[in-house]
């Protein structure tokens, strides 16, 4: 799977929640690898993902009106259908929204330092 053949776009309600694993990784090192792995994620129900052709583990761009980040997609039934779930973190606070548009995209996930750079500029 090299390029997303169709530009799949999906608008979803965003729910944030406190994830114990993410909190534990923040207690370790907020600039570490594990933090990014546990935080820069978006969770969608497998049925919702199947309808739009999204695959587990792929990179997704999450957009609001004027902000966007790249995170990794996890498929899990813990997300209600037609909703996206993201751990409460600097990423969700940066987006500051209750609806998002998600699109498949290649590339690296956004790192916390990237968001800090944005916050300091604006």
């Amino acid at each position: 799977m090299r390029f997303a053949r169709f530009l799949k776009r999906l608008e979803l309600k965003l729910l944030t929640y406190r994830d114990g694993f993410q909190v534990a990784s923040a207690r370790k090192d907020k600039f570490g690898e594990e933090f990014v792995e546990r935080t820069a994620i978006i969770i969608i129900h497998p049925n919702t993902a199947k309808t739009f052709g999204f695959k587990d583990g792929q990179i997704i761009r999450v957009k609001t009106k004027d902000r966007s980040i790249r995170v990794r997609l996890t498929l899990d039934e813990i997300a209600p259908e037609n909703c996206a779930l993201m751990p409460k973190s600097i990423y969700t606070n940066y987006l500051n929204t209750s609806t998002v548009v998600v699109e498949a995209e290649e590339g690296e996930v956004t790192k916390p330092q990237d968001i800090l750079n944005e916050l300091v500029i604006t």
Partner: protein
Amino acid sequence: MICTGCSCLCDDVVVDEKVRHACRIGASLILNRNVARAEPMVDGRKTDLDSAIESAIELLKDSNKVLIYGLNYSTLEAQRIAMKLAKKIDAYLDNGLRYDLAEKLLDGEVRIATLEDVRDYAYVMMFWMFDAHNEMPRLMSRTYYARGKKRQRGYEEDRFLVVVDVRRSHTAMLAKKNAIFIEYDDELIKEFETAIRGGLARREVLKVVGELKKSDFNVIFTREFLPFANEFGYIVPTIPQTNAMGFYKVLREEGGKIGRLEELDIDTILVVGDDPLNDLPLNAIPNFIVIDPKVSFTSKIARVVIPSAISGLECGGTMLRCDLVEMKLKPPFKSEIDDVEILKRILRGL
């Protein structure tokens, strides 16, 4: 030792070559204590501790409006000094959380139950909009699953679990036998109020209210104030930040000006043990002075960073558990400098 990972303040944790009994959050705090430690910094340059404290004092002296933010992870002793400091320089205080439930609890308007009492006596246990499994992992194993004095037959017979949430969280998945999951909507609070007074409501609410009658000890685990709390039974406040309850209690005793970081026009924010950039969307970036044991997002853009100790692990003191029980910390390690020392020095310098 007493684990300071969350406000469960579990006192059965053992630290030797391995960390025993602490959940993942507590174990991560303990095992990774030497990872990403903060270093003294002024304007982005590394310096020594004394210079950093001096710079902080100077910056506070030069500021018009100051806010002291955080304090949820500091001991009661440190919180007290911070509030004295706030009074001295007419600074605002904000712990970043809501005040409604804490006020009602400290006013005595709502009855509170201790975790031990819940374990020993509680029948109906309602988790209201609170994902215990992720926020305070050991809470359920210490209360719902544990056997108690009057609850010897275990959770399947001696307890009734109610989980209320907007989605089927991990905690909701545990509502199996003798349990019920109720999906939250805006009518639910009113329906509970009505049903408890004998009126009609949806089937699930009536079922819960029916179960309430089987016992005189029923509990709601919640972070917000619920108007039917006293008629239901007891409340266990579930604010996961380790010593947030301490903040409210000390604030009541010392007095202070509450302000909200997002709402105020502030020159300088003194952050103690917390990370506002992690929690809040900020419109403007004021001067930050950060006192924290570890590197945080806020410390990366702060003007002054003062490294501190991890409470309960490297320095002692007292903290309040989520149910307001006082716990005297038993740190297995010792650090040279901690929140109390730093705040005392700042207070003296002003």
